[in-house]
């Protein structure tokens, strides 16, 4: 079953087409990886889907319900969670409080919301850090915090922006395991990732973008061999 379907989504900023007629579908329970070089329009695509940026035109359907043009809080209320590339933790609050704010969406009782938040924090393996302020956590831990916080709203679809970006090499395997573990819970995931190895390892499908355009879509093995993708990453000699 299609959980998300995006059709001809476009957005330009002052003449530059950040997203140009992007279309793709996501099947429920799968992981879609989005790759592309710097400035390919990956994060813009996330912002368009979740309503943070208004699209110029296009169509976004979530469970066959049109969510195009809704405000971000309404979209998240329907069950779309997200994390941010430029991390946005609630810096002056503890990890636990951060996740509790997410948990309050489904759970009104404070005690039960706390317990639920703790379970999720345990899931991302940060229980010992629960009383640390978000600003005291390392980047890798803050990434987990954002994942946990987004999970706490019990999303059906989770958009994750560069989970492994900017973190120490040593912590990457742990984050990858976490994504895999998350998939097993039945959540559909779209993840932006620049580390190709990880994308190949976890995704069911890969969407490759370059300069705002969709250049390839398909299973990872195919994408890795796709000439356009290789050119986008390694460049071409044409110019030289």
């Amino acid at each position, binding site marked *: 079953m299609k959980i998300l379907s995006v059709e001809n989504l476009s957005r330009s900023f002052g003449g530059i087409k950040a997203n140009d007629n992007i279309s793709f579908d996501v099947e429920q329970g799968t992981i879609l990886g989005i790759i592309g070089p710097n*400035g390919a329009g990956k994060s813009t695509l996330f912002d368009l889907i979740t309503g943070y940026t208004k699209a110029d035109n296009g169509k976004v359907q979530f469970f066959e319900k049109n969510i195009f043009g809704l405000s971000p809080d309404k979209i998240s209320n329907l069950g779309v969670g997200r994390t941010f590339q430029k991390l946005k933790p609630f810096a002056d609050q503890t990890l636990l409080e951060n996740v509790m704010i997410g948990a309050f969406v489904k759970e009104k009782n404070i005690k039960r919301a706390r317990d639920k938040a703790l379970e999720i924090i345990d899931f991302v393996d940060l229980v010992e850090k629960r009383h640390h302020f978000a600003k005291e956590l*390392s980047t890798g831990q803050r990434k987990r915090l954002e994942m946990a916080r987004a999970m706490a709203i019990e999303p059906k679809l989770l958009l994750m922006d*560069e989970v492994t970006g900017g973190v*120490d*090499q040593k912590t990457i395997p742990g984050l990858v395991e976490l994504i895999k573990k998350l998939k097993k819970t039945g959540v559909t995931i779209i993840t932006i990732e*620049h580390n190709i190895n990880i994308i190949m390892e976890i995704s069911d499908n890969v969407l490759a973008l370059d*300069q705002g355009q969709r250049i390839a879509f398909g299973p990872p093995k195919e994408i890795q061999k796709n000439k356009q993708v290789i050119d986008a*990453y390694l*460049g071409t000699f044409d110019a030289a």
Partner: protein
Amino acid sequence: MLLDIKNIDVLYDDFQVIWDVSINVEKAEMVALLGPNGSGKSTILNTISNLVEHRNGKINFENKLISNIPTFKRTELGISHVLERRRVFPHLTVKQNLQLGAWHPKAKDQINQSLKKIYKIFPKLETRSDQLAKTMSGGEQQMLAIARGMMGLPKLLMVDEPFLGLSPMVMKDLIKIFKNIVQEGISILFVEQNVRLALSMADRGYVLESGRLVIDGKSEDLIDNEKVTKIFLGN
């Protein structure tokens, strides 16, 4: 040796982004810094111009330790930094942008010669000299940013992602310009994602992965190196 970086670490707050990196650039040499997104290439350039402080290690320029010299005094030494995404002053004209490039006294004395030279290299900038920078296309802005960097009479020109978002035509122009600059005895250190393009023009390359130097060497040796390909495309 013009620039010599020895074993630097860089931390943002408590979080380390650069681990024990050493890089050097000779006079009149073109060197490429390569690596996937977020591998720390820009951070290294920012460290060289002291927009970001480094811990441990040393940065020497012309055999002089410059680790503690503030950013704004580094152009005078001969280090020009063209920041990522161009960063021209959008509400100033092309000419005003160029003027500001020649800020330290030595550059100011020579501003007219420099302008002439720049206009020869970038003829488009002369015809558009009274236009606001924001009205120019991406490629023209990139040219302007590089030209502005040249106005400071650098010995080392650092360019962050010069080819990002440029059309193949403009890229070709820019490559020629880079070669001309190096022929004049100025060294170029540039950050690039396009490995093949970068290595086709640079003398040497350094490849970074997650803040660590993985491999470096002459361009010929790197260009179809399997290890490099793996870093970018995976196993």
